[in-house]
């Protein structure tokens, strides 16, 4: 049945879809034609604008949403600081949080490199964040599986 927890979980999954899906779409769908069709100057300006907007959405909506809904879901699952270290559900969740933190650090580094006009470093950081966030999804799937028992 749909209850309040369904809605919390929905918001958590929706946030992940928008963030990871958004990055994937930009990398795979938007960037290749942009690189082909725009001049170098236009391209840099456009990428910076998209990057800035993504950063604002991340800081203002995505992060608060994921953290709030995530904490609520963990609380509902009876997760405590101690159970975070136990093998199984707790440890998968801990690994997921760790990886998510790394992803956020990489995303922040991407913003910094972009601002300093270092395209190589910016690209490396954004791809790190993308691959890492796919790993977060993988661990989230494993988490769902371990509660299904």
């Amino acid at each position, binding site marked *: 049945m749909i209850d309040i927890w369904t809605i919390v979980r929905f918001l958590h999954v929706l946030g992940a879809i928008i963030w990871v899906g958004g990055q994937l779409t930009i990398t795979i769908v938007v960037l290749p034609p942009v690189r082909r069709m725009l001049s170098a100057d236009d391209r840099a300006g456009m990428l910076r604008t998209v990057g800035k907007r993504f950063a604002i959405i991340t800081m203002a909506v995505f992060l608060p949403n994921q953290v709030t809904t995530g904490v609520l879901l963990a609380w509902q699952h009876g997760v405590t600081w101690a159970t975070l270290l136990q093998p199984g559900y707790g*440890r998968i969740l801990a690994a997921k949080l760790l990886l998510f933190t790394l992803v956020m650090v*990489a995303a922040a580094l991407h913003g910094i490199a972009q601002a300093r006009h270092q395209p190589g470093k910016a690209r*490396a950081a954004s791809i*790190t964040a*993308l*691959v890492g966030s796919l790993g977060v999804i993988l*661990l989230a799937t494993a988490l769902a599986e371990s509660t299904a028992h």
Partner: protein
Amino acid sequence: MTQFVDLIPPPARGRRSGPRGSVFVWANIVVLGWLALAVALLAVHDVLGLPVWVALHALLLGAVTNAIVIWSEHFVVTLCRVPGPPPRRLALGLTVLNLFITAALIGVAADATVVAGAGGAGVAVIATVHTIALFRMTRTALPGRFGYLVGYYTAASAALVLGALSGAALAIGAAQWYVRLWTAHVHLTLLGWVGLSVLGTLFTLWPTTTGTRITDSTLTAARRALPTLAAGLLAAVAGMLTATVWVTVAGLLCYTAGIVLTIIPLRPATTPHGPAAWMLAAATAWLGISVLLDAVRLLVAGSVEDLPGVVTTVMPVLAVGFAAQVLVGALTKLLPVVLGRGPAEHRAIADILARGWQLRLIAANLAVPLVAVGLPSPLPQLGWALAALSVATFLVLALRVAIPVARRGAFPLEPAQKQAHGTTSGVLAGLIAVALAVAVAGSGQDTTATAPVSAPTHTVEVTLTGMRVHPDTVDVPAGTRLVLRVTNQEAMPHDLRLDTGQHTPRLHHGETALLDVGPVGETRHAWCTVAGHRAAGMTMTIRTPSDHQHTTPDSHSDDNGNNSDTAPTAGLDLAADPTPGWVPRDATLAPTTATLHRIELRATEQDLEVAPGRRERRWTFADTSPGTVPGPTLHGRVGDQFEITLINDTTIGHGMDFHASALAPDGPMRTIGPGERLVYRFTATRAGAWLYHCSTMPMSQHIANGMYGAVIIDPPDLPAVDHEYLMVSSQLYLGAPGSDNQVRKIQAGQPDGWMFNGMAAQYDHAPLTAHPGQRIRIWLVNAGPGDSTAFHVVGAQFDTVYKEGARLLRPSETAGGAQVLDLAPAQGGFVELTFPEPGHYPFVDHDMRHAENGAHGLFTVTEQHR
């Protein structure tokens, strides 16, 4: 004289794409293919249920061996300026080599010993052909300054021939020589074939990579280093084969000295730059470190028994740090030479191959200390993941340039190919982070998973020792949830894998792991996945009663038609004639003379007479050949010293347990492997009739198959008698030692017979003798493994009973007499009697089931002739 070396020979006669035509390009793609297979196997071997060594062999036997064969040939042709073989012959040779490698890999993975043996032998043949070809090439033309290369490659190939042959022997199952052959195999292939090839090539490849000149002193050093390296390897392998620690250590140190001799002339004046230089340098450093580690750890361990454990620490270091890294480094340098035509193409290809090299270098070399065993999970897994990622990234880059060249014959040099930087390092950094997180997430046992509790749980202790799984058969009622508690009791690592795919991790000496079999519905098989161990006999069967209903005594309707062995005395005809030439076991207890008893006991397997006319294979302790059951009797007095040397001449592990001694069993009673020896010392402090037996699990099997004997320690006030006899009672279990059928009977406690001194009804056929009025002392030890004994002499009474160190009856206590000396398993004592008149006096185990099925003999008492 100094010179820059150009690895590219003069333009090939009309051939396209690189120096040696398309065969050479494809040969390098085959190398990359094996490397890709190795990485893929490393990632998924757990899911597919393949042992990790398959991935290791895909790397070493597949990728590295192919690379050595094609590049050694290329270097000799290019540097010695001799004509190379026609491409068609090269292609044929490489195809056959790869077929043999595939056969060897599949053969051992699928447990098809003939295929595995043929593959190994085939690789040896190709290596021989390759060596002869190299040799003949340089004989036709003057080799010049680089002729030393042929020496290195010849020595390396010789090592591969020996390594492949020892590998084939392992695959076929050389149980008795397993440890020695295995360590020799590892060293011959890694230090011989790979090591010598790489070090020899390094003298020219390193200066080329760093852009320095090859000087005459470098080439002199190259000629000097080879004898040191080869002598070191030979000595080390000889030491391993003869199980001599100091020879092995000396050989390894000599080899290390050879590496130092190589490095000294090559040390760069400035910091090397570029991926190839760094990878070659790091790889060579790991080679030196691991050989030194090998030697030092062996020296500390001080025993060849620990060699397998030492090697398993060093081998991953060699595979990841040395072999994989040297291959990637060399290909980074050499692939542009093969794939590109002209400086522009070389540069473009080299640029692609260099992408993200700093991160790849860090990942690979960070992985090396992690994969060396001994670190807690998930660090080793993380190390393997890092190594695999590092190699995989290079593979993607290499295949991206190699495949277009192979297909189109040229490298597509288009400016549009230029891509934004950061892709490779981004993907790598992301994957490393994910691998780390997944490793953390998956570590530890998942406690949230609940086990089904409906079925009864049954835990069985399983030990891995002496290249065997003990017990090798486990019977459980159908539906039982079975858990195996698996302990590795020997220095060589083992694991245990079920046919359903569940398996324990690789267990090192003394480690234990739980293997949850789950509810058992039908017969399951399990085995050790370490290469060759299954062939050598490390297998186990789990059965349910439905598989063997014919063992229950009341089931006469046997539908398996396998009835002959099931009745207790089937096949036992106690009145039959013993086989011609049979000699009864002398029951007389030899008098004791010395105070220091030094004896050599050899664990051997013998065909012995176990019942009249019935010879079967038995496990014995033998002081002289042939061995007997029971083993030699030791006879001494209180205070005597005993020094027993146990030598294991069988194919499985054995040990000893002397009840006559009181000492901490940890060391003296340990199980020793085939070919090993153990010295067991004790001082007899207490009198008694003591049992000694094999201490290896499952003891019931070792005792039931004959590994027992008696130690008689006379009480201080023991008077002399006219005749002193010794009887060791035991049960008889027919069948091949360790066979399913025999093990089942032992576990059910359903012997085929009972016996004194190792043979049913022995003294019916060779009666003991005495005269009326003579005082007879009969010592008795019950060896079991399971039944008690009630010793009785028909028609006679005992006036003396000594049991378990105490006199229960003395002749002076006139009124009393005794009829039976009763002994539980492992108890002992003696009785004394005199026969009143001439006649035939049977002696029996008065449990009549035992007496009627073999525990029966005769005293023939005759008038003394004066």
